[in-house]
């Protein structure tokens, strides 16, 4: 992966504090797993940016390489991969996801 590709990916996943790479859009997910993560985020009232892999497979492949994660969806918070669908389900069930999504309060 070139430096240019790396910064392209990093700019993208940092474009919103919470960022989802998915199949389809939050309004119209095109895969059951992406739909599940969207539903979880919406239930928690999260605001997030998203990238539809069907718009650009090259970028998808770069994100996958950067994350060392072979599948879609991928959820990033503060530019760090939090998980795919299974981990998000698990973190949502334990209540941990809500904590991760809540920005640290300023003292």
């Amino acid at each position: 992966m070139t430096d240019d590709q790396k910064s392209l990916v990093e700019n993208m996943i940092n474009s919103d504090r919470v960022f989802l790479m998915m199949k389809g859009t939050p309004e119209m997910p095109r895969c059951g797993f992406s739909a599940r993560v969207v539903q979880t985020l919406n239930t928690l009232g999260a605001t997030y940016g998203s990238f539809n892999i069907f718009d650009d497979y090259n970028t998808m492949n770069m994100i996958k390489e950067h994350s060392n994660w072979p599948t879609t969806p991928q959820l990033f918070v503060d530019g760090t991969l939090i998980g795919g669908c299974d981990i998000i389900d698990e973190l949502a069930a334990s209540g941990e996801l809500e904590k991760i999504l809540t920005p640290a309060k300023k003292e």
Partner: protein
Amino acid sequence: MDQILRKLKQAFPGADIELKNTSSMHVGHNAKGMHLKTTICYNGFKGKNLIEQHQMVQKALESELGNEIHALSIKTIIM
């Protein structure tokens, strides 16, 4: 399926491994390859976060993912 289970057993010696074919739950969405679900309880997951644990499983099935496996649902448990 047998070969996939064998690979997992090789990658995670001593682990309790459950592997299910859940393809029938995903009919009508025209993907090649199986939908599988695996639960792995392994002492080698100790000290690793969820991302790293799942990456270990993905790596074990690297050559199958995207080929005979279309989707793999993973649950890891620290033994």
